């Protein structure tokens, strides 16, 4: 850095630097799911579309979490989804309850009038763009898990979290799915289903991680073993500030 402000913590992690544009909280919200739909083949889920108005449609970071955790020993809660280029967020869940989401965008797109209100610290890039403002929360990353997916295998890791502070999971990387055809008897006739198994963020009572969950069924789809975007990927987990 030629000049300006740079903050690095004791772990060597850069927190503020006028050469780097931080992500800051743009908007947040919640939604509730009161019932699930039988998608067929005893797969239950609910799809939600969130219209989050962000400036940079290809830039946002989206984090999401369930508002409550499952009890110890109970099944994990799963959330799958993705962020479309038009900034809509598609979420699929397999548990009723309330879910909370946060959208972060690069600080250069945030309101300078809000950044200049109250008190605190603003940091600008050499070009005069807002790089950081203490008026906007940053995603506080407490863990990053990495893994890889191939059509036949799935490898990743989970991390332990504090029960009282449910982590937000990074939704952007949940774009993997594969489909398998199944048959079942329905009204005396055999019916074909295609079960789409989506990559999902998983919350248990004590850990967060990533897995594969059967979330959506398309009847009559003849594609099988449909696999997208295999390869190394990552999932970040952020703590809630408030």
């Amino acid at each position, binding site marked *: 850095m030629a000049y300006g402000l740079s903050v690095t913590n004791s772990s060597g992690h850069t*927190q503020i630097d006028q050469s780097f544009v931080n992500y800051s909280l743009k908007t947040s919200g919640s939604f509730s799911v009161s019932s699930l739909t039988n998608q067929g083949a005893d797969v239950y889920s609910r799809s939600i579309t969130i219209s989050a108005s962000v400036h940079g449609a290809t*830039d946002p970071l989206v984090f999401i979490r369930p508002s409550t955790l499952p009890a110890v020993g109970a099944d994990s809660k799963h959330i799958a989804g993705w962020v*479309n280029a038009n900034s809509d967020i598609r979420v699929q869940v397999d548990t009723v309850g309330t879910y909370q989401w946060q959208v972060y965008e690069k600080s250069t797109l945030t309101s300078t009038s809000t950044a200049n209100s109250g008190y605190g610290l603003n940091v600008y890039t050499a070009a005069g763009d807002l790089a950081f403002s203490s008026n906007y*929360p940053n995603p506080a990353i407490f863990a990053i898990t990495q893994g890889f997916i191939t059509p036949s295998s799935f490898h990743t890791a989970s991390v332990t979290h504090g029960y009282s502070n449910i982590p937000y999971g990074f939704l952007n990387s949940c774009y993997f799915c594969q489909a398998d055809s199944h048959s079942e008897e329905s009204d005396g006739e055999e019916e074909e289903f295609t079960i789409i198994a989506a990559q999902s963020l998983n919350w248990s009572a004590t850990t967060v991680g990533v897995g594969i969950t059967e979330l959506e069924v398309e009847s009559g789809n003849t594609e099988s073993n449909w696999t997208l975007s295999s390869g190394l990927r990552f999932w970040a987990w952020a703590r809630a500030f408030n």
Partner: protein
Amino acid sequence: MAYGLQLRDAAGNLTLDISDRVGFFVATLSGTVSGTTNITVAGISAATTYATLMGAFEDDIDVSVTVGTNTVQVAGTGAYKINLVRFS
């Protein structure tokens, strides 16, 4: 906080603590690939920079992304939009 930096907004809510790791915007890449293409992005590495594909299976994206030193490799077939993020 034992030492260091702690910032709050005007309402008194904590927005940054010395122990935090945070996210930084690096770049957005978009285009169409058929096969493999390498895109030069100065200052990135697999250790610090992460790539996410925008869109989902409804868009039928058949593209994979690999981050290397000062480069992003995009492989597959089709249009892509990639967000590069640095988590400190």
